[in-house]
């Protein structure tokens, strides 16, 4: 019996350990491989890369050779900044208004605001394209900003509502019983306490906007090109090695951002909650 049990335990360690190792390999290896490939000396993306050079990074940062990519990067950053800004404003207001409200209608509104997370993005993207076109808007970054705000605001609402539900209601009550106005309590008590939640959500929303495909796919045009769509184009036609350099930059950026967010608001802890 004891022998069989230790055999079973051994098989458990082997199987579970092996599969987990495979999972880690699958998660990490492609990222490392792309980073290595981006420094290739050759003209194709074969692995292992031949030699070491920064040629694709130089081509990428060259303003005249890569104007379209630069344009797309600026557009993506601009859209992400504005949509996150509006998202913070509207989203945190909505969370403050609804998080403690047990009314049926408040639950419905909350469900509505979170629904872009489950709704297929392509369906909304296509709907937005038809809607804006049929009511007579011309394609512009403003429309993309509006679309991105809708699909990224759930991240802000989720983390902000989580922070609000952890607030001790006594703080609010004591502030008000000491004579502070609603606005003063909001400014000096509530907002400072939920700020890390808003910040974490805003970060996720910003990243989701930078990465958004379904809305940008339908609402962007050649003039309002967005980075993921541009990169998709670079992969679809001839495989342009500059895309490895773009990936290298984005991987580095994600890594650094992740470290910064971990130190400032404890992002991983918040995401597990």
């Amino acid at each position, binding site marked *: 019996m004891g022998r069989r049990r230790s055999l079973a335990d051994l098989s458990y360690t082997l199987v579970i350990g092996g599969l987990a190792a495979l999972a880690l390999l699958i998660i990490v290896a492609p990222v490392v491989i792309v980073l290595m490939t981006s420094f290739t000396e050759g003209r194709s993306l074969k692995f292992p890369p031949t030699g070491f050079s920064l040629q694709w990074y130089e081509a990428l940062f060259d303003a005249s050779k890569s104007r379209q990519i630069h344009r797309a990067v600026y557009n993506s950053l601009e859209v992400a900044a504005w949509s996150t800004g509006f998202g913070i404003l509207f989203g945190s*207001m909505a969370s403050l208004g609804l998080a403690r409200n047990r009314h049926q209608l408040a639950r419905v509104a909350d469900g509505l605001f979170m629904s872009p997370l489950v709704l297929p993005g392509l369906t909304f993207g296509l709907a937005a394209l038809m809607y804006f076109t049929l009511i007579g808007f011309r394609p512009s970054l403003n429309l993309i900003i509006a679309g991105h705000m809708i699909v990224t605001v759930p991240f802000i609402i989720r983390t902000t509502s989580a922070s609000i539900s952890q607030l001790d209601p006594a703080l609010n009550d004591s502030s008000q019983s000491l004579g502070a106005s609603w606005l003063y309590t909001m400014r000096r008590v509530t907002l400072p306490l939920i700020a890390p939640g808003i910040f974490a959500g805003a970060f996720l929303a910003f990243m989701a906007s930078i990465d958004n495909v379904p809305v940008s796919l339908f609402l962007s045009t050649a003039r309002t090109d967005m980075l993921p769509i541009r990169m998709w184009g670079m992969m679809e036609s001839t495989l342009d090695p500059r895309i490895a350099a773009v990936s290298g930059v984005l991987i580095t950026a994600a890594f650094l951002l992740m470290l910064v967010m971990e130190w400032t608001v404890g992002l991983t802890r918040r995401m597990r909650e």
Partner: protein
Amino acid sequence: MRKLAEWQLALPLALAFASIFLAPLLMLVGVSFFNDDKITQPGFGQWAKFLGDPFSYKVIADTMLLGLKTVCATIVIGYPLALIYLDASPRLQKVLIFIIVMPLLLSVVVRTFAWIVVLGREGVVNTLLMQLGIISEPLRLLQTELGLVISLTQIEMPLMLLPLISVMSRLDPNLRDASSALGASRWRTLFKVIVPLSMPGLVAGCLLVFASSTTAFISQTVIGGVRLIYLPLLIWQQSLVVFNWPFAAVVSLTLLVSVLTVVSALSYLGRRSGGYVHG
């Protein structure tokens, strides 16, 4: 008076959602009931055309199957990783969660591109297999469903792991100790204790992975190619290449309905199994 003021804070977002979320979706439904691509003749023509074509059902089934295969693959290798996380020291846990979350912050396009480099003709897998002498010709991994499922497994993995880990971390460690003290093997403890109790996380993970992989337009088109047709590709072709908006509306509503149907079925099963454990 104050109560009134509080819920009114939600009004700006409610207005935004009404005008740029609900209204477009309603219009999408409306447009799907027009027969011609100029959107002038109302009728059920496009629905009849889509639902009367056997090809449509194949595309729907392929799309749903792609989602289910990806869900299975993420469970098979993701669940063990979550178990390892559970047993790890706090320091190792921090490293693991960092590795798990980081891909989430990395553009889907970059993750898709990575798999082109890995699976391509001159990619890592082919180079390795050829040098080991296992194959003499490069395998075709891109533009196959297998390659697509492998790629999506990595791309969607964080969506499975985060809810799993979040639920598992809250499990009482004493339960596992009790199970093992009562003589259960680790396998038995896994299937009789840990899996049932982590069901809410598992279900949440499945929902996210399914919804995301069935609609992963970029990965599907770039790794799957144009020969593997899924609903997102059909929507894109019909709306931005052929400019048949009513038909595109029909397909995208079909995508919406099929994804939501599977998602609600999964969450219903999840609730039932959850009820079994706690009741």
